[in-house]
């Protein structure tokens, strides 16, 4: 039996969808901002709907930055979603002057005006060759900001919207998704299942 998945609140994220997707996989979740629990939990999810600046502020005020740095640094099971992926980066054009956790050596930028922004919908993801968790397929995106280049030290899945962008990153048991696995149908459920260590879902 898995221990509860700890969901770290980042503000206004729609946690109901994340929790429902875990429930369908037979996993229980708790929403908890306690840094001790964020350190010790087997699986931690950093969801993200909202804006970069307020989300960083909330993480700092709950003293969660170091706990997340530690987990990600050690490659322990940590899944970050959309804005949650941006928070791992150095900074974001969405909230100039605010520093991210700096675990991914990249700056987050807005999509160019040549395409419709926000990007809403299903985009084709090309998984990395050497993948543990990430695969190719269609995933659901809802974002205006993205990483346009693969950062060093991570396996990258890529997609196209006004040029290439990073659809997801992985290193060890850390998976950072620009897309929403909880809203990506069977593709997303399979990824969550693999990340939770459910062999059958692979």
């Amino acid at each position, binding site marked *: 039996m898995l221990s509860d998945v700890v969901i770290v609140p980042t503000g*206004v994220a*729609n946690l*109901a*969808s994340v929790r*429902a*997707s875990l*429930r*369908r996989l037979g996993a229980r979740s708790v929403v908890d901002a306690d840094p001790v629990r964020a350190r010790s939990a087997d699986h931690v999810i950093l969801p993200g*709907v*909202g*804006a970069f600046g307020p989300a960083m502020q909330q993480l700092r005020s709950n003293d969660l930055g170091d706990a997340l740095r530690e987990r990600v640094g050690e490659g322990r099971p940590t899944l970050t979603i959309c804005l949650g992926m941006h928070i791992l980066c150095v900074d974001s054009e969405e909230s100039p002057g605010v520093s991210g956790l700096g675990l991914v050596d990249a700056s987050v930028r807005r999509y160019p*005006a040549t*395409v*419709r*922004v*926000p*990007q*809403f*919908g*299903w*985009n*084709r993801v090309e998984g990395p060759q050497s993948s543990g968790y990430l695969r190719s397929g*269609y995933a*659901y*995106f*809802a*974002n*205006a900001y993205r990483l346009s280049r693969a950062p060093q030290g991570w396996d990258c899945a890529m997609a*196209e*919207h006004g040029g290439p962008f990073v659809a997801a990153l992985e290193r060890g048991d850390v998976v950072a998704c620009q897309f*929403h696995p*909880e*809203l*990506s*149908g*069977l593709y*997303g*459920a399979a990824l969550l299942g693999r990340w939770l260590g459910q062999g059958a879902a692979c």
Partner: protein
Amino acid sequence: MLTVRIIPCLDVRGGRVVKGVKFQGLTDAGSPAELAARYEQQGADEIVMLDVSATPDERRTAFDTVRAIRGRLGIPLTVGGGVRTVEDAADLLEAGADKVSVNTAAVRDPSLVDALARRFGSQCTVVAIDAVRTETGSVEVVVASGVERVGTDAIEWATEVARRGAGEILFTSWDRDGTREGYDCEMLARVSDAVPIPVIASGGANSAEHLLQAFRAGASAALAASIFHYSETTVGAVKDYLARQGIEVRT
């Protein structure tokens, strides 16, 4: 590349789907959650639930309906109908909606769009615009289920809500709604040219070809109800047709 989206719409009143649904093999043809799950299996890219409750008692059941759909649905859910305030939207998001759609309340008080975008982000904020053509060829906003003209140009209103932070526009031709004559593609082209955000086509769909026309006119997504509810076609069959026509769809 980003694919076009096909969005079945469920009209729900008092917790039940109101338009007759004639699917084979449904245990409960009026259950929004069961129908939503069926559409996901067929390949729907998203679901819109429109609460058309007529009384406060009926409306209170909407949150339970959203929770029930969310429990089964692994794709995005937009909920609209009767959203008046930021708190209404917060309650729907908490119950399991991924996006909330506002219509009449935003026309009455446009600052509601700013307030929603500020609190939840543009990616949660959908503005539904119901429009009719006028005698002079312009396109005008209507509210209160199409009965009231407000004297606002629909293209200007679309531009304004985009500026105020709407993440997408659900654009319904009230002239075409229920006619099965196809979407008003000329109107769709005008609105999608005018705004930098995605536009969902709505009103009048009766065939896969109608959806193709909407996408060619610039729509990012197409909403349809009766053609799917009555099993005249399936989402999968529409996608096969679109793919043959060279439109990228999620498979």
